């Protein structure tokens, strides 16, 4: 690694941030969908939290992680989209022709995506606060939620960047983001595990890593500081990050070396 690695990463991150800021349509629809989830599910489904399986939890606190995670997926997916765009226009080749760090070329959009996701999450939390959210774990809980979101975002960014560098075209990369649906909806999205009826959905819920993320966030919002849900949440994220970031690193080294 050469000495200008950090500077190069800074330059590429700045460029990606400028691109996002000048194209509000990169993040507005995504934020809109997340808030839509929050408001519609809270408005339409909050009555079911009267059921005993909810243990008296507030439905807003229950559904909030769904909104946060869906926003995170969108934000992190943007990193892959940005790279696909560069690959398709040929700008990526121009960057490869500079003596800059190869890793920095890929990291720039990821860092910008993480920043976008952080700001989105804070916005969603603020709106949830005005809707009456109470966080059982207090202020420290917010940091935990942000950390979980970032970790999740990073894992998904690794996935989207890997797909982007491998397929090198927008349609395939777009198709790759459809994993969003099973990830978000084949889980304890709307009701706790005990209330899920279909067996196949129960199995899917257990396999789906998002479930552990939902549970970790909910434990912070609803129950306060509990060890196991957080431990499981962070462990699952660490594993996912390890897998997807390795995947993107391999794809990246293939894309930049072009044998």
């Amino acid at each position, binding site marked *: 690694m050469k000495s200008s690695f950090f500077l*190069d990463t800074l330059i590429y991150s700045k460029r990606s941030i400028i691109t996002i800021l000048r*194209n509000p349509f990169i993040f507005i629809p995504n934020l809109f969908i997340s808030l839509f989830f929050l408001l519609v599910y809270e408005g339409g489904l909050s009555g079911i939290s009267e059921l005993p399986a909810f243990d008296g939890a507030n439905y807003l606190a229950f559904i909030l992680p769904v909104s946060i995670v869906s926003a995170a997926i969108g934000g992190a997916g943007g990193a892959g989209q940005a790279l696909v765009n560069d690959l398709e226009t040929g700008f990526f080749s121009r960057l*490869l022709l*500079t003596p800059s760090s190869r890793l920095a070329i890929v990291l720039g959009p990821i860092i910008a995506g993480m920043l976008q996701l952080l700001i989105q999450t804070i916005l969603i939390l603020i709106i949830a606060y005005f809707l009456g959210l109470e966080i059982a774990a207090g202020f420290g809980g917010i940091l935990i939620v942000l950390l979980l979101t970032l970790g999740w975002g990073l894992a998904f960014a690794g996935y989207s960047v890997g797909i982007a560098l491998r397929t090198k075209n927008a349609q395939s990369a777009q198709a790759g983001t459809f994993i969003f649906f099973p990830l978000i909806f084949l889980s304890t999205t709307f009701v706790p595990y005990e209330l899920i009826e279909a067996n196949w959905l129960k199995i899917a819920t257990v396999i789906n890593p998002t479930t552990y993320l939902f549970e970790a966030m909910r434990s912070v919002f609803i129950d306060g500081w509990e060890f196991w849900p957080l431990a499981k949440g962070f462990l699952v994220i660490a594993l996912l990050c390890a897998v997807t970031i390795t995947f993107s690193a391999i794809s990246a080294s293939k894309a930049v070396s072009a044998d």
Partner: protein
Amino acid sequence: MDGSIKVNELVKTYKGEVKAVQGVSFEVKEGEFFAFLGPNGAGKSTTVQILTTLVKPTEGEILVGGINVKENPESVRRNIGVALQETGIDSVLTGRELIEMQARLFGFSKKEAKARAVELLNLVDLTGDADRPSGKYSGGMRRRLDLAMTLVHNPKILFLDEPTTGLDPMNRQAIWKEIKRLNKEEGTTIFLTTQYLEEADQLADRISIINEGKIVASGSAEELKRTLGFDAIQLTFENLEEADHASKVLDGLGENIEQTKHEVTIYTENGTKLLSELVRNLDEENLSPKTLNVKPPSLDDVFINVTHKKKERV
């Protein structure tokens, strides 16, 4: 670091199947204007990509500016400027931002990058549009911006892959003027690929033509025309039928025959000598050409002749 290029027995095989480049060797001296020509799919682009570190060679020794591209690609990148046909430009950033970013990536400080951008924008006549997003530029403006970005670090060697394809005459002239200036005044080595052979004919000190992964001709434009040693007899006909007919009748008469629509060209060692026989043959078939010309070969003729598939030759 100098401005030379040395390629020795370059081979590029893709995934063990296609041999895109099959043992190519050539040399470009410092300050030389070198044109690299060849039909589509001849191995031209692959060679350029290898010389510019985008693709790794399978075999062979390649020194660009005296530096081995395989062992030290990063140093090579610092010393070359590359305007590839397919390199795009971020359409969101402005022309100024793009040049500044490029300068920063080549190690300029913020202040130096700003100053360099002002200089280059002026050079390619984009000062007035410097702060508009490049996505709003016309094709010619984008190409000029691309050239400016390529020149950010004062490269000793400039690789230009069809830099004027699709440009209007005015933009073409502007680009050529600047490239000529770089070559003549600053001694920049130019490595050019182009579809416009008259460009190579006028500008290049030396030309190499690649076909099917091999170099088939090398030399100055004049040398190439001379070594061809052929005259071209050019005939045009009233309609396609006659031209087709004439093609059949005259096939085998010269060394090579070529037909494009109404025009039939016969390459032969001595045009005037063949003429009487040619006219007699046409007469027998009641064919009369609209025009008939005997001329020394142009670079186009050289190109067609050396890249023509062997089996079509007589």
